[in-house]
């Protein structure tokens, strides 16, 4: 018994180590470059392309190293009058939940491809993910800075508001697939509707997908919902006072959240690791190449949604704070509720 627990723990630790530092954090680092290059291209600029090693520029990829070095070499300033313990702790309080949620994300067809295939899967994500609001709020409060505090207030209000809509959006999907286990939901999306259309979440729940996208971007606090760090009025919001590697941690947290949203959208609405029109029969699932292909499909879809979020961030304008609140409470929430109602009725009638 004990040996089995230890073995399971070791397995989980290895898988987590491969998924999170190997994929999520690497992608997050890459995103710091992608975001600048992509925005530059959208705005007809060139973007960072000058960092080089021995004359090799590699499209500016070395800016990641340069930035990391720069962050590492900067002084970690703790402002006077702040609560130094909480100030130092806050980035980690935000970072830890953002990374832990990846534990329940099934990236491949079998249990081998998920760190921990929890039955409450998606609820675990909400439960842990909502903890990161503490990090931001404590950061803002402990900075002893009016701008930081206002940013922190906005963060907590915004995240709590959209948390509700986010969960309600997914309720429709749960009802359709009859489970909150992510692996079950993905497996359910392998069927074909009428033998033609893959039974993906976006097909059965289109309204929920678009609302989910809006709500989840609001959760990541990125444009158009980045009022908490609105530069014109709040300098940099709740992380105004951070510098050096602590500041880098905030960026990493944000990028990790972006990846999480992309994975959620992939898993719930775009068939997860499913390859369209290639149903995962047990025989096929048993082969290693099919498993690899599925994982690749999952990551490809994830990258696509990362790209979509970037593109949205550089397309849209920042909304005013009251607009964000109005949208969350007065539109997204009622529509989500209506969506749940309609889905329920439909399921009741077609049973």
């Amino acid at each position, binding site marked *: 018994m004990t040996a089995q627990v230890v073995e399971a723990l070791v397995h989980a630790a290895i898988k987590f180590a491969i998924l999170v530092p190997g994929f999520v954090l690497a992608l997050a680092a890459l995103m710091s470059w992608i975001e600048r290059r992509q925005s530059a291209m959208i705005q*007809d600029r*060139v973007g960072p392309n000058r960092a080089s090693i021995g004359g090799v520029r590699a499209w500016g990829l070395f800016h990641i190293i340069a930035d990391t070095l720069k962050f590492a070499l900067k002084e970690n300033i703790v402002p006077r009058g702040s609560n130094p313990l909480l100030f130092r702790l806050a980035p980690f309080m935000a970072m830890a939940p953002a990374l832990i949620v990846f534990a329940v994300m099934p990236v491949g067809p079998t249990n081998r491809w998920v760190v921990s295939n929890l039955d409450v899967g998606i609820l675990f994500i909400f439960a842990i993910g909502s903890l990161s609001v503490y990090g931001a709020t404590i950061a803002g409060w402990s900075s002893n800075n009016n701008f930081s505090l206002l940013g922190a207030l906005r963060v907590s209000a915004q995240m709590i508001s959209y948390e509700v809509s986010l969960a309600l959006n997914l309720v429709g999907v749960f009802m359709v697939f009859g489970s909150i286990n992510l692996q079950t939901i993905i497996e359910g999306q392998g069927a074909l509707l009428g033998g033609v259309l893959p039974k993906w979440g976006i097909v059965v729940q289109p309204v929920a997908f678009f609302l989910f996208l809006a709500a989840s971007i609001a959760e990541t606090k990125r444009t158009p919902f980045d009022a908490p760090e609105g530069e014109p009025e709040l300098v940099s919001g709740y992380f105004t006072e951070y510098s050096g590697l602590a500041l880098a941690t905030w960026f990493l947290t944000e990028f990790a959240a972006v990846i999480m949203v992309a994975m959620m959208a992939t898993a719930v609405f775009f068939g997860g690791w499913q390859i369209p029109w290639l149903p995962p029969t047990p025989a096929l699932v048993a082969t290693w190449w099919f498993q690899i292909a599925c994982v690749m499909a999952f990551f490809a879809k994830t990258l696509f949604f990362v790209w979509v979020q970037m593109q*949205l961030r550089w*397309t849209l304008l920042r909304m005013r704070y009251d607009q964000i609140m109005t949208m969350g409470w007065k539109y997204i929430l009622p529509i989500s509720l209506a969506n749940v109602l309609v889905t329920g009725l439909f399921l009741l009638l077609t049973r």
Partner: protein
Amino acid sequence: MKQPLRPKSERAKPFERREMTFAEKLFYPAIWEGLKVTTKHLVENIFGRKHTVTLEYPEVQRPYPERFRGQHRLMQRDDGSPRCVACMCCSTACPSNCITIVAGERPEETIEKFPMRFEIDLLKCIYCGMCVEACPCDAIRMDSGVHPKPTYNRQAAIIDKEGLLAAGAKTIATQGGTFGSRVAGHLKKHI
């Protein structure tokens, strides 16, 4: 103070708020349009930099206009000596007094006056080009296209005769203008 009354037609018209249509209220169509624009730019700029106008400066440089006034240079005669005869026209024309010339005599030459020292203080120079206009001998030019380089001390910003000559070249312009050049041609034939 009261604003003067203006006819109604000239007054600023209040902005009329129009009720948004349902499609507009949805935002998503507008977002879709926006995404189309940004994606078009993204794709076109990644594959071919269609819209990018940035000049990547040190490697790529905008060509200067022909009459750009850069760092000065002193032109040379056929034997490499300066064409300058130390007439001081340039230093007289100079509005910032940046040219220092000390004239000397060389009895062996046809043109016996020459500059022993010819120094330009680039910190004083305002690059107006008056010296070039004033020069009767096509000796000083500002057509090098070179920007003055920053220096660590004031002394280094003074270029001396040797430096100016090194940047110069032999010129075929004949002293004395159009008529003079005809005379010079004759002289060469006869001597």
